[in-house]
């Protein structure tokens, strides 16, 4: 899967399933402070990512993920490790 397709998919599920306002979706946005994704929403991201991308996130791997761009990078690296 191409990187831009991955980013498009992430943005889409943030809008459709986490119900984040589309105008808030910016790479520099902080997941917690700007997008309001709390610890419970993170639990749902595990489920959504598995359904959309077919891999299971690990809590320790996303400990450093703070911005949306970090999240894109994390997912891209899991899908396209090289």
């Amino acid at each position, binding site marked *: 899967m191409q990187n831009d397709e991955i980013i498009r998919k992430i943005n889409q599920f943030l809008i459709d399933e*986490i*119900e984040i306002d589309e105008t808030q979706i910016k790479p520099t946005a902080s997941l917690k402070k700007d997008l309001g994704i*709390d610890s*419970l*929403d993170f*639990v*749902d991201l*595990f*489920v959504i990512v*598995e359904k959309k991308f077919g891999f*299971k996130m690990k809590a320790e791997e996303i400990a450093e993920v703070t911005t949306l761009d970090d999240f894109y990078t994390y997912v891209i690296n899991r899908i396209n490790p090289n």
Partner: protein
Amino acid sequence: MGIYSVIGKNLAEVEDSLRNGRSGIIFDPVRKEMGFRSALTGMVERPQLKGVLDRRMRVGMPLQGEYAYVSTVEALKNAGLDQAYLDANEVGIIFGNDSSALPVVESVDILRQQKDTMMIGSGYIFQAMNSTVSMNLSVIFKLKGVNFTLSGACASGSHAIGIGYLLIKQGLQDMIICGGAQEINPESTASFDALNAFSTRESEPTKASRPFDRDRDGLVPSGGAATVIIESYESAMKRGATIYGEVIGYGFSSNGEHISMPNVDGPVRAMEKAILDAGIKPSEIDYINAHATSTPMGDKNEANSIDLIFGASRPMVSSTKSMTGHEMWMGGASEVIYSSLMMNHGFVAPTINLENTDETTAKLNLPRIAMPCEINTFLSNSFGFGGTNSSLIIRKKSR
């Protein structure tokens, strides 16, 4: 008061159904396919709350929580209460609920399939607990008072109002959002169906629930939610609230016998305690909303119980379960609302499908059509598995 029931999604619709003897019972083919002995059930559509409540508030709410949200919104509006009032005052919540089967089944299904708890997501824990309704509504409405769920089988909703009444009477709370909620899905009633307790009159769904009728053959499960906001008299007067009724008596008892077979003594003691608490004579009760679920033994024993206490005065008795089916955890609260609607609008709802009484039920004064009636005081019975009994007495505002 607010209601979301199989005979109407608000007070006005419900009143119309009560007057016209409208049934909310259907045949559910899904249940038949699943292997139910009886596919009969009360049915109401799922409320659509997307766009009404944000995602975090919705994901932790099971079906009965959604019903209860809708009934509580109506009750708050009806009581003239807004969020500013709830923010500024210590308002509590006690809801009757005794299961949340579907989220339990669904989350365990996910675990069995995925073998990873992380695939269950964040919402199921809050949906699956028995306290789900009070838990969710207390957060949505930002309540600051007493906050718990009461599980007392099919008397849960009635006990919730009774305990709320006692807390207010003790001066511990001024206002409590009470009620009862019941999920409608096959998962929550499959094990009940296994007891051969449900009516199998599948060819005539709307005639299946026939309390006190000679040919009754079992109950029909149902559900929804009912919200009754109770407050101290002083609080109601201060706010200029519309008072639908005054809770004047609560009686409770336990049969001390069989887990599922009702008796006569337990309900008699609950009704007598309610009458004693109310400080009235049995002859002052104008109407009794019976628990009567349409089971052969339950209706017989309740008829005998009522006759023992009210044999001399013979107030009108009806079972609204003939229309709604058995709303179980919700029923004790919804039936207070049905009876209050009758009291405030001057009629008694019929026991529909009552064609022939038997030698026991013939002892009661059972209207078969809606009757004009001046009700000043009514008694509402709710009984449940384990032999739990609750009787509430409510009268028109008198002071």
